[in-house]
């Protein structure tokens, strides 16, 4: 009975150097995969799903790419996970965080090959990350007090974020859309209040921000198409048959006449319900569930606009926007808060009819209508805009801002390099490696833009020797430029999250010296 039978049949075990190699290789492969999407001149990826229809997604968003990959390497999964968390937490920087973690591991691999213990590397990385964070904290600019400046900061951040996406052509247009939308939120990070509607057709430039609320639904037939000073009742109630909910109740009759009677009673019940609803003094009724023809007809008779089957999000948003409450019972009309808006009308976007609520009581919500040539473009535009909105809403809360274009990386790299010189012991090698990994990001940005990265980086480094330097890579003109003058900004929160989670992930992978994979769970073939 040999020793290697302690595991089940298909389980595998990798140890020591081999394990470390496997995780380094996996992590770097992932980083290399998304590397080319970094920066304003980054390229997109086509993803084809294995599901039915072989749907195609074209994207530049790191989190989206990584989410759709089927990965077997455990270390790679760690990187996918940090990118996902970055997406959930700050919304942007999903590619950078993976690339930085990959670079950190690449440097670590060299150090391990030079016989430095992973624990030493980790402690060096920790010191370096702490130092880098501190230097960022010193260099941040906070313009919260000055409203105009703050707005221009936000514009800059939005433009910087969008410049690496498909929207870069119309980035000013979209940046102002995003900033307007986020400013309306007044500091809340609840992005649900911003609705994005995608309608194919037209060009990206035709996208617009609407101050009101647009519901992608049709108005019932024979009902008014335009209501001024609308009183809206938002409801979540059954308007089909309104079943008896008591368990076990059923209708059992013995003659056709009785069936008719019961049916009549049911109808009567519905009529009563509709009367009650009308009794609220409303002229618009929005329901989450279906409205059958019969009640719809009753509403039409009363001259009330009835909208059925608005989905759950739509209802919540509408309630938020109009300030009404979502009602499910209608017995005491006097205490139900009705939503209000100045005008409800049916509008056309492209070919489709939508319902537009304008002049709403609460100005927080708004709708962004995206137009574009195809679904793929629209999907990608939505993702890009979502990134921008996330970053902006986070920045509104934490208004510290940094310059972009590789400037923060240069600053951090310089500082960590200095720390390395001051630190005695083997740790200094790790700190130095950290600084090199940081430099990799501007290098990749330059490479992706087809520029001479070695030349540019060395120029930048020389510039950064002087105090208070604001130089970074200007990808558009292909040279080193003043980032402050060009208005390229990034949010501090994003950079900090990139730095910390990339270091954490690299540290975690470095600590591993053994990988044990269980036998994959068998699935019955459904062929």
């Amino acid at each position: 009975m040999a020793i290697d039978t302690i595991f089940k049949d298909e389980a595998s075990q990798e140890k020591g150097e081999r394990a470390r190699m496997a995780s380094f290789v996996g992590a770097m492969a992932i980083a290399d995969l998304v590397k080319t999407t970094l920066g304003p001149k980054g390229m997109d990826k086509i993803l084809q799903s294995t599901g039915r229809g072989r749907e195609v997604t074209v994207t530049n968003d790191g989190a989206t790419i990584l989410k759709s990959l089927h990965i077997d390497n455990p270390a790679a999964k760690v990187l996918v996970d940090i990118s996902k968390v970055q997406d959930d937490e700050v919304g942007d920087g999903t590619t950078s965080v993976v690339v930085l973690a990959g670079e950190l591991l690449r440097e670590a691999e060299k150090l391990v090959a030079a016989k430095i213990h992973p624990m030493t590397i980790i402690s060096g990385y920790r010191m370096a990350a702490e130092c880098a964070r501190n230097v960022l904290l010193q260099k941040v600019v906070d313009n919260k007090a000055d409203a105009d400046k703050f707005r221009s900061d936000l514009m800059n951040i939005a433009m910087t974020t969008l410049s690496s996406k498909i929207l870069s052509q119309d980035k000013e247009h979209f940046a102002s859309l995003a900033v307007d939308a986020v400013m309306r939120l007044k500091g809340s990070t609840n992005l649900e209040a911003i609705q994005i509607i995608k309608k194919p057709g037209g060009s990206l430039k035709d996208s617009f921000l609407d101050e009101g609320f647009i519901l992608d639904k049709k108005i019932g037939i024979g009902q008014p198409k335009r209501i001024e000073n609308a009183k809206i009742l938002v409801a979540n109630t059954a308007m089909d048959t309104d079943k008896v909910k008591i368990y076990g109740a059923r209708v059992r009759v013995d003659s056709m006449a009785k069936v008719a009677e019961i049916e009549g009673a049911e109808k009567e019940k519905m009529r009563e319900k509709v009367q009650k609803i009308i009794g609220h003094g409303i002229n618009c009724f929005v329901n989450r569930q279906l409205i059958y023809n019969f009640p719809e007809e009753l509403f039409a008779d009363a001259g009330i606009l009835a909208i059925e089957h608005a989905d759950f999000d739509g209802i919540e948003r509408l309630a938020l926007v109009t300030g009404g409450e979502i009602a499910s019972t209608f017995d005491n009309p006097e205490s139900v808060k009705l939503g209000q808006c100045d005008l409800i009308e049916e509008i056309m976007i492209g070919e489709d009819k939508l319902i537009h609520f304008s002049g709403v009581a609460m100005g927080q919500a708004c709708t962004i209508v995206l137009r574009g040539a195809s679904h793929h473009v629209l999907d990608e535009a939505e993702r890009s805009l979502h990134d921008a909105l996330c970053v902006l809403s986070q920045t509104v809360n934490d208004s510290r801002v940094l310059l972009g274009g590789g400037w923060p990386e240069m600053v951090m790299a310089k500082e960590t390099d200095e720390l390395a010189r001051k630190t005695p012991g083997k740790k200094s090698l790790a700190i130095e490696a950290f600084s090199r990994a940081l430099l990799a990001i501007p290098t990749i940005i330059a490479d992706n833009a087809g520029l001479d990265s070695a030349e540019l980086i060395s120029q930048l480094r020389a510039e950064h020797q002087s105090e208070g330097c604001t130089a970074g890579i200007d990808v558009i003109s292909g040279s080193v430029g003043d980032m402050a003058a060009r208005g390229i900004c990034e949010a501090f929160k994003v950079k900090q999250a990139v730095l910390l989670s990339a270091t954490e992930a690299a540290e975690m992978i470095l600590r591993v010296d053994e990988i044990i994979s269980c036998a994959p769970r068998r699935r019955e073939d459904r062929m």
Partner: protein
Amino acid sequence: MALAFDEFGRPFIILKEQEQKSRLRGLDAQKANISAGKAVARILRTSLGPKGMDKMLQSPDGDVIITNDGATILEQMDVDNQIAKLMVELSRSQDYEIGDGTTGVVVMAGALLEQAERLLERGIHPIRVAEGYEMASRIAVDHLENIAKKFEFGPTDLEPLIQTCMTTLSSKIVNRCKRSLAEIAVKAVLAVADLERKDVNLDLIKVEGKVGGKLEDTELIYGIVVDKDMSHPQMPKRIEDAKIAILTCPFEPPKPKTKHKVDIDTVEKFQTLRKQEQQYFDDMVQKCKDVGATLVICQWGFDDEANHLLMHRNLPAVRWVGGVELELIAIATGGRIVPRFQELSPEKLGKAGVVREKSFGTTKDRMLYIEHCANSRAVTIFTRGGNKMIIEETKRSLHDALCVARNLIRNNSIVYGGGSAEISCSIAVEAAADRYPGVEQYAIRAFGDALEAIPMALAENSGLQPIETLSAVKSQQIKDNNPNFGIDCNDVGTNDMREQNVFETLIGKQQQILLATQVVKMILKIDDVISPSEF
């Protein structure tokens, strides 16, 4: 052997022949078992100590776990060998009993097995070896008792407790902020501890995690955090001086358990039923309102109508709260769990200072904080971190730290860590060995050698010369007659563990030695392994 004869001389088969069963006997069986046990120990050996490495485990579903906790590694490993399974059990029982030292106990058992193998080769009977180990373990445990220090702490002087928790945490990935985590763990344990009875119910400490943020944002909340939100989006997000009704009945029409049918055959019946139904919802909500509740927490779901009625009567509510959480809320707020609306009464309501909903990140994750409760003896540790694996590992590490703090409250004896206790025991055992006549002497001496495996592994993992360091420390201990010298894993510059503030609990150490010895004894006594063949 497999063939026996009955009283008529007819042969019958006790054990089916070789093609059905694989079978190992005698010394072969022992050797195979020992080598399996050693293999498991070898996997864990590199995880020991502050510089120990982590293991990456991939579950059958492809999820990744990165951990350093012995019990978790073994639990997730797909082990097939019977003896290896025993080792897994060993680590698990250490986890249940003590909560910490799950790696150490397996490494120790591995070392004992290794020593036993040598003795077996010299022709010593396994039972004699087992007996010798038993004697030696008794000596070691008694010796630990002698070198243990009582240490005093009070509600005001938490420092010693924090130091001990820090020792536990320093071997985990979270050691970057071990200080703050140790403080959190100690405060949490003290909050729920019953210092007079020296008892701590760890069930009262809930460890919740949410990805995002950083490790430093981990906080201790004197109250409960529930991963739920208000049932209706427009309910208030913050309630002060909440009176909480804790219900286990749904806001839904009644569902009698007996099978029944309500037949509707006339219009009148239809209408009365409808009225009843409406009345029913109204009554439910009204009852909650009448007893003065300002928040309803329910284990089950709400009907749309009921939900609106609650909202309408200005009674915020939370639905689908799990059973365990419900109990914790009941304990924390001093309320009673009410199974029927009829039984609601004002004195059964729980009280909490503030209940608020907090949202995270850019997704719509929301959590409900219930704080400033009537009875503060239920706390939540809320961990944050860069990714899912860090959160999971933090939770496991905190669990270890909590267990250590609990053990100290139960029994405030400590021994010094860093392998010093093992070295000291080893010296004591070896000195005692000479006094035993008979073959057991060899086994006792072997036990002493096996004890050195832990400091050896510590030194190895810290990148020190294992044999050199160990012998230096050992001679120092004998020379100064001071059991506080251990392995200087962090390169601090001193070997004195008292100065380094590295403690471990006495019962943890004793338990390690006892459990490891027991398992090894069990393995040694096996002389026949019969396992069904694969197919």
